[in-house]
């Protein structure tokens, strides 16, 4: 127990490490010292995450913010593991990736800040800590996205920022309303409070919570920033953006929604529909892409759709939630690691000569297959877990969902095939040779991905799905292989025009522009200025006239004869008026 406490308490320095390093980066004197450490900033947290005993690690900091609660349950631990692992790998990867960059220090600062935010939002169990971590991560990630300063990056950054702010505010309202009504400060209490809340308030909180976190999680319709932002960032940043940070939205749902407490069928169905839409829509658009990183971003949308759907199922069936939750967590872990590996690999794929490229390309197969849910990969396990729980869903869904999930697996597999096609080794060799600093962390990540199913089969109850699962997960891959073969044969793939990244963004923009017209600050102030100028002219005229009148009257009153006349009048009035008053008073 004691040693467990000690191990648990490693978490705190682990969380604070990136923050501390980020601060130290600020001082010119310590910067040089800190710089070599930054790639390893996530390592303490990773170690802590591994050594942690879930549910026991709990600290209460009443003075922090409005009362902070730090702690982890099993789900949290999985999220933390995923996150720390990805950040560690990306950090190390980035060290070499950005060796040439002039903005390396800047990158690291934002990298560390996002990392800190990401960790904080996972480990805090109170609203404020979560919100703080969420904000820190979101705002700092802007620095990662626009790292290149290319026009595309800046545009992506701008859209990202807008949506982030909107997300922040939605979340703020959701939290304020929930906390205001329930009086809760921790998520645990908040969920309970939300479960018993007046439906109107409840719906508002859930709507805003889903949308606010949904922006981060790439919820269908709010996903537009993702395909813009993920590709433009440097590879290690894309990896954490798509692998780790995107999960913050998911985690937000898990924390906020009264999952497992009450059934919210309407919301559940909404989420299922949105999730499914994203799952297919992401693939459909992704297939058209030519930029592998954009494609990966769409894949993320699609994969997050699956998880969204699972959350929706959870909302439908509170009793099944204890089972669904680990599934979602595992799916998140699987997707995060695979997606991270793919992004990192995509960053590597074009370096070196053909042979080197091919080696890397082959390496990419592992996460690609995992995502496609190929047998004996984490993907298979994850998909099966999810699918098995969908069977408990009420009427249409119990039949529909497993089917759709399988189709989605096929779709994902197709997308991965498309990815591998796009990243296939090129004949011409690139000047940049793949360096060990890039390869090693990537390879480490790959090995983790490869090992995960074997670790987790022990941890997760997978009995009853073992046998059919292999077949079940095999057919999409096989089908994909077939389709790919046909498509390659037909060579019609080339004709496909990519849908612009951000797809429905244009809709948003148009809507926004219509909305913004009357509120445009430029128009506003111009109208204001015109009004002011016009008023000024009138006023000036009036004042001039008044001044002239004033002088004139004073001249008049200053005349001896006039003044004396008034004196006479005054004497008479003073005498007369008093008589009048007395008259009134007397009679």
């Amino acid at each position, binding site marked *: 127990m004691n040693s467990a406490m000690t191990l648990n308490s490693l978490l705190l320095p682990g969380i604070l490490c990136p923050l501390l390093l980020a601060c130290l980066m600020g001082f010119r004197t310590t910067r040089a010292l800190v710089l070599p450490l930054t790639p390893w900033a996530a390592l303490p947290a990773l170690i802590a995450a591994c050594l942690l005993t879930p549910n026991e690690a709990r600290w209460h900091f009443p003075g922090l913010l409005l009362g902070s609660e730090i702690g982890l349950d099993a789900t949290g631990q999985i999220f933390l593991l995923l996150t720390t692992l990805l950040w560690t790998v990306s950090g190390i990867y980035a060290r070499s990736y950005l060796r040439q960059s002039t903005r390396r220090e800047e990158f690291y600062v934002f990298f560390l800040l996002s990392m800190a935010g990401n960790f904080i939002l996972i480990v805090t169990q109170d609203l404020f800590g979560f919100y703080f971590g969420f904000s820190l991560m979101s705002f700092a990630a802007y620095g990662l996205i626009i790292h290149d300063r290319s026009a595309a990056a800046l545009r992506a950054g701008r859209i990202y920022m807008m949506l982030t702010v909107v997300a922040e505010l939605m979340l703020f309202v959701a939290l304020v309303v929930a906390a205001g009504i329930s009086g809760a400060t921790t998520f645990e209490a908040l969920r309970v409070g939300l479960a018993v809340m007046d439906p109107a308030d409840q719906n508002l909180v859930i709507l805003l919570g889903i949308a606010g976190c949904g922006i981060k999680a790439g919820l269908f319709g709010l996903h537009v920033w993702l395909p813009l932002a993920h590709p433009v960032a440097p590879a290690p940043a894309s990896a954490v953006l798509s692998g780790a940070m995107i999960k913050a939205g998911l985690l937000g749902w898990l924390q906020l929604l009264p999952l497992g407490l009450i059934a919210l069928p309407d919301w559940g169905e909404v989420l299922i529909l949105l999730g499914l839409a994203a799952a297919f829509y992401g693939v459909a658009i992704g297939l058209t892409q030519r930029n592998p990183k954009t494609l990966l971003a769409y894949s993320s949308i699609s994969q997050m759709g699956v998880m969204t759907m699972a959350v929706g199922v959870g909302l439908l069936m509170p009793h099944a939630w204890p089972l669904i939750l680990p599934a979602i967590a595992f799916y998140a872990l699987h997707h995060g690691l695979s997606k991270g590996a793919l992004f990192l690999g995509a960053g590597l794929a074009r370096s070196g000569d053909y042979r080197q490229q091919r080696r890397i390309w082959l390496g990419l197969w592992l996460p690609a297959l995992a995502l496609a849910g190929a047998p004996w990969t984490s993907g298979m396990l994850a998909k099966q877990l999810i699918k098995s729980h969908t069977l408990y869903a009420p009427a249409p869904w119990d039949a529909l969902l497993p089917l759709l999930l399988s189709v989605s697996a096929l779709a994902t597999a197709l997308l991965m095939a498309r990815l591998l096609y796009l990243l296939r080794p090129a004949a011409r060799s690139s000047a940049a040779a793949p360096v060990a600093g890039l390869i090693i962390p990537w390879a480490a990540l790959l090995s983790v991905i490869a090992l995960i199913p074997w670790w987790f089969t022990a941890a997760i109850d997978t009995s009853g799905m073992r046998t059919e699962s292999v077949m079940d997960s095999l057919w999409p891959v096989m089908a994909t292989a077939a389709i790919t073969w046909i498509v390659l044969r037909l060579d019609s793939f080339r004709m496909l025009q990519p849908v612009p990244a951000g797809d429905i963004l244009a809709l948003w923009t148009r809507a926004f522009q219509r909305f913004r017209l009357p509120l445009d600050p430029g128009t506003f102030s111009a109208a204001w200025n015109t009004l002011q100028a016009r008023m000024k002219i009138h006023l000036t005229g009036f004042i001039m006239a008044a001044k002239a009148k004033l002088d004139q009257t*004073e*001249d008049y009153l*200053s005349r*001896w*004869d006039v003044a*004396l*006349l008034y004196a*006479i009048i005054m004497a008479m009035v003073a005498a007369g008026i008093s008589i009048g008053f007395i008259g009134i008073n007397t009679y």
Partner: protein
Amino acid sequence: MTNAFLYALAGSGLFVLGLHALVMHAHVLRKILAINVMGSGVFLILVALARRSGETTTDPVPHAMVITGIVVAVSATALALALMLKLAEKSGQAVLPDKHGD
């Protein structure tokens, strides 16, 4: 009705006549004359009404007051005349200047 009232009425008439002139005439000298006439009017009222106590016993207090008043009046007149002359010397005319000299 004694002559007291008669003179007092004459006094008020003088006061008003003086006032009229004070208003109407621009020349300072006339204004000074007007002030003096007004003063005489006031004195007349003051002394005349003292006669109401009868033919023989007159109230001496208003008399003393008027003597004081006359001396004050002549002092004021002298100052006014001196001022008028000085003003005329500077401005070339003995009329009240307009408003202020700006």
